């Protein structure tokens, strides 16, 4: 039994050996950089000054290292440490699994969309809007990645960090909704070309193809206009438009908060301060107007 050594004990031995070699190396280096006794041309002031303080700090650091590494070398400490480390891959795997599932969902949407390529397009209908792909991406961001930026911040500068993370998060959300919105706006263009092709094919069958290039443009622009008019009246468009504007406002507010943090250390008034002043002036002017009317 005594011959059987657990892996952790092996790790402990390895750690102890590495610790010993590191301590020896840094001890030698310290002696090399700061040989015992003052240098011949070193003044008393220098010995008491920067040089002396650096040497003292380095020696203190080495002693601390020896103490900490010694404590870690104890088998029970090492076991606790490696146990924690062993849990890390599980955490990482869990994170990866969640993100991978979302990625698969996006890929599935892409495949579904690709499968619809070449299908007949009904003119002036938007009953099956493909922007779901981008909506899925936005949702994935909101549900997965955004959470990392919302991890509570700690310490003295936590509020600044929080505002910065919030700005980054708001920017990402705005970009996601903007992509959704732009993809929606691009849809009528693609659809109008497909409808135009079908219309031209019909005319060709009848032998009524227009001779002038302008006639094709007129046909296309009419179809395009009709598609936009139809799209603009859908609930999806109204929702996406509204979400894009809201996310833009949210991002700009968050960005302004970060800028105000930066300005607070400079002799420049912030927008909140000037707004407060404007509001006060507005209030006073209204009072003045009321008094003037009352007097007149």
């Amino acid at each position, binding site marked *: 039994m005594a011959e059987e050594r657990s892996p952790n004990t092996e790790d402990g031995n390895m750690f102890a050996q590495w610790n010993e070699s590191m301590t020896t190396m840094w001890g030698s280096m310290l002696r090399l950089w700061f040989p015992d006794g003052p240098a011949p041309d070193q003044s008393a002031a220098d010995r008491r000054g920067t040089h002396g303080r650096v040497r003292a700090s380095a020696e203190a650091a080495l002693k601390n290292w020896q103490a900490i590494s010694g404590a870690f070398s104890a088998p029970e400490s090492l076991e606790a440490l490696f146990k924690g480390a062993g849990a890390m891959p599980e955490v990482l795997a869990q994170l990866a699994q969640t993100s991978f599932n979302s990625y698969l969902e996006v890929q599935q949407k892409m495949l579904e969309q690709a499968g619809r390529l070449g299908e007949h397009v009904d003119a002036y209908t938007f009953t099956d809007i493909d922007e779901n792909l981008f909506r899925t991406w936005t949702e994935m961001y909101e549900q997965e990645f955004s959470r990392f930026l919302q991890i509570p911040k700690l310490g003295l500068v936590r509020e600044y960090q929080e505002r910065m993370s919030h700005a980054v998060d708001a920017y990402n959300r705005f970009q996601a909704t903007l992509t959704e919105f732009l993809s929606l706006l691009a849809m009528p263009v693609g659809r109008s070309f497909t409808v135009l092709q079908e219309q031209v094919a019909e005319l060709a069958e*009848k032998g009524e193809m227009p001779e*002038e*290039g302008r006639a094709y443009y007129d046909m296309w622009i009419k179809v395009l206009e009709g598609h*936009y008019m139809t799209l603009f009246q859908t609930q999806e468009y109204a929702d996406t438009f509204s979400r894009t504007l*809201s996310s833009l*406002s949210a991002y700009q*507010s968050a960005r302004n908060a970060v800028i105000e943090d930066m300005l607070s250390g400079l002799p420049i008034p912030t927008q909140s301060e000037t707004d407060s002043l404007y509001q006060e*002036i507005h209030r006073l*002017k209204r009072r003045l107007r009321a008094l003037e009317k009352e007097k007149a």
Partner: protein
Amino acid sequence: MTQSNIPVDLIMSKLAEASEKAQTKARKGSEVLLADLNTDIAPTPYEIVYQEDRVKLKYYRPEGKPKYKTPLLVVYALINRETMLDLQPGRSVVQTFLDHGLEVYMIEWGYPTRKDCFLGFDDHINGYMDNVVDFIRKRHNLPKIHLMGICMGGTFSVIYSAQHPEKIKNLVTTVTPTNFDTDKGLLHQWMRHIDPDALVRTHGNLPAHVMNLGFLLLNPARLMLDKYVGFLEHMDNKKFVENFIRMEKWIFDSPDLPGAVFKKFIQDCYQQNLLIQSKLQVGGSPVNLKKITMPLLNIYGLYDHLVPPEACEKLTGAVGSKDKEDICLRTGHIGIYVSSKTQAEFAPKIAAWLAERDTQRKLSPKPAPKPAPKRPPKRKARKTPQPKAAAT
């Protein structure tokens, strides 16, 4: 092998012909663009007779003695600029009024900055507008003046007339939204989904470029593409190019919209439709449309995509006036003021309607006014005098 129905050779030869024409047009077009172009807008001379903060009052005096006893105050919207009423020679509503002998005052709202974001309906209507009306009444020694509102300026004029009926002799509303509960215009549909609080919190005022983008998105195929294709097709025509650029200048010369006005307009008007129900409150007082008892002329465009007829036509039924009239012209929101077709009927109709009700007029105008006569030679704008307002 079946014979194709597509006359490929004919199409190809037409394409070659079109390409040659395009080359010639591009060459001539570049000559036009490089030449001196007159693209000035708002060329009719005026004086600034009053100023309060950023708001100015323009005064346009007709040639010779005015033929109306009562002057007309025109209140434009806070969106875009009042220069649209005097866009170009031959298409100027202001000039047509002057040609009929009507003295015209017009409010220039200016360019709101961040400090104006707290100015709401009350500040604009019972503040600036009321001060302007009082200034004109005092200047002409008259108890009442004529009031004409345009788009949002019309909404302001309706509210003003309801709250100060004793100061308005006749009211003219043009493309004025008063009923917002309609699905006919995209703007009405979209505004229900907007969160004005968030926009105002972020921007202070609603930025003009955001509004302009919104307007372009109402019809991107025509406004962002076809319009410029049309420009390329006519770029060898100097007159066309000049007029096109004038319109471009006007469209994109847009002030920001004060945040508090935007918020109230969206929440109380577009989202709750309070005005037409006489439930709107401005400055702590109700806006009771039944208090509008002066004659009312309500003009709107049949093809207006921003303020459709459904948004305008309920006003005459809601006011207390006995003398009221709706006129629906076969035109759009901007065309009503600038199209050559409506120039002959829109402004002359208003001038005639006012003349019939200008009981103290000095001289009767002709019963059936003719289209605007030829413009007099261009005069230089008179020097701007020091504003007389007592405001800060």
